[in-house]
């Protein structure tokens, strides 16, 4: 499509910058066979139950990107009120608050920030969210447990 000629260039630029100046604690590499598919590694933020964990995510740039948001999903299991069993993420910038001025980098930073500040009032998995709301300490212990089991493989 001629009108999208500039867009692969944008992806190219974003990819280059992600590898040259990676955001702290985040590594995103495009798949060798598909420049729209990224494998992402994200460190759990310090001072959260996800600390010391290393999370795998996948990120896909749909045809409509950047007019459409990227699709991002956790591949590593995580106990978080805004992330469900399948790794789907409830985050406004991935949905209605998406703007083409945002980028892969800013989206991944937003996800990292979501790990630091869960939003149990806007839940994706209601049972996890209820757990966080009713007994935050207990829920964080479960999150820590899951972090050890699934995200600290080394």
């Amino acid at each position: 499509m001629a009108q999208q000629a500039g867009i692969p260039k944008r992806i190219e630029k974003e990819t280059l910058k992600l590898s040259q100046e990676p955001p702290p604690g985040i590594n995103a590499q495009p798949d060798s066979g598909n420049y729209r598919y990224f494998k992402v590694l994200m460190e759990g933020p310090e001072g959260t139950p996800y600390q010391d964990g290393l999370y795998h995510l996948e990120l896909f740039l749909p045809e409509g990107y950047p007019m459409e948001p990227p699709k991002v999903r956790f591949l590593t299991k995580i106990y978080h009120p805004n992330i469900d069993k399948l790794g789907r993420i409830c985050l406004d910038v991935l949905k209605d608050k998406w703007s083409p001025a945002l980028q892969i980098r800013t989206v991944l930073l937003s996800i990292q920030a979501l790990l630091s500040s869960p939003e149990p009032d806007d839940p994706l998995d209601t049972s996890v969210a209820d757990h966080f709301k009713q007994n935050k300490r207990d829920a964080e212990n479960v999150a820590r447990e899951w972090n050890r089991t699934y995200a600290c493989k080394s």
Partner: protein
Amino acid sequence: MGGSGSTNRASRNGRDQGPTAPPQQVYIFQNGSYAPQGGRPYQMNYNTAGYYPNIGPAIAPPGQHMRQQIAPAQLKKTCVVKNPVNLKKSSLAMEKDPVSANIYYIEFDFDALDEVEITIYFVAKEAEDKNTRLPRFTCESKDSAVSRRFPKGMKQHYRSSSSEALNLLSHPLDKLTYKKDADTYPVVIELHAIGAGDFVQSQYTYASLEMDKASNNWSLHTLKQKVQYGEKSYEVQEIYGIEKAGGSSESLGDDLSSGRECVICLSEERDTAVLPCRHMCLCNGCANIMRMQSNKCPICRQPVSSLLQISVQDRKRTSPKKGKGASSSSSSSAAAAPS
């Protein structure tokens, strides 16, 4: 280099408006390189429905955020008019006399493509002259307006002489700080271009005094700027991001974060501003794509009423200066809303 544009907000271009419709949008550049053609506003060819015939809401990918059909934002027709005088808003300041604590000198930088008469009014009331329909300022106390003529020239500096200085004791203190809906403005600076004959071209800068509590000095703050173009008056408003546009173009394309590239393709130079929020963040190609698919500004997500393309090609050709020199002097403004 100062670029400024103006749009007539009161009248939005209808979709069915043909190319023969009268130009309702006026675009002003405060720079010599934007001379109008033959003294008449230059019409830009930027109302091109079907510019990209293949795209439209129908084939937009059905993303979650675009379920509803979006009426494409209109590209504004603009035209360029010459504004020969400009006070650089960021340079406006006031300095206290070293001896007398009540005497303040006003200073600012300005550009003039014509001989210019600068008049400063203190505590002035604005009214429209019934015959000429031009703004007229009347001061409450006598000797409150001071005028001086300057030759034409860019990057000139104005500083009040001792007879022109502001004496705080000559004016009621409460009128030196502007309050909303007050009928007087503390300071009005008029730059009137001489040489255009009967056709009036002036710029007005309205300012207010504020007490800086830390230093216990008064300082001067701009309230607004207006441009008088013949009988029409436009309020000058900034376009956010224009100061990064233009300038040197060599590095564009390789530099990953020059800050001048379109936020969508990250490749082309920004030349299109979103209205009404005035974020200049798009190149014209992406603007054409975006207006079919989204009605929100990429920067602030406010609804888009129209898009305004600002040509920066002339600037590149006529002023090969680059980097800071070319962009720091920008007053980066657009005028809107005839009063």
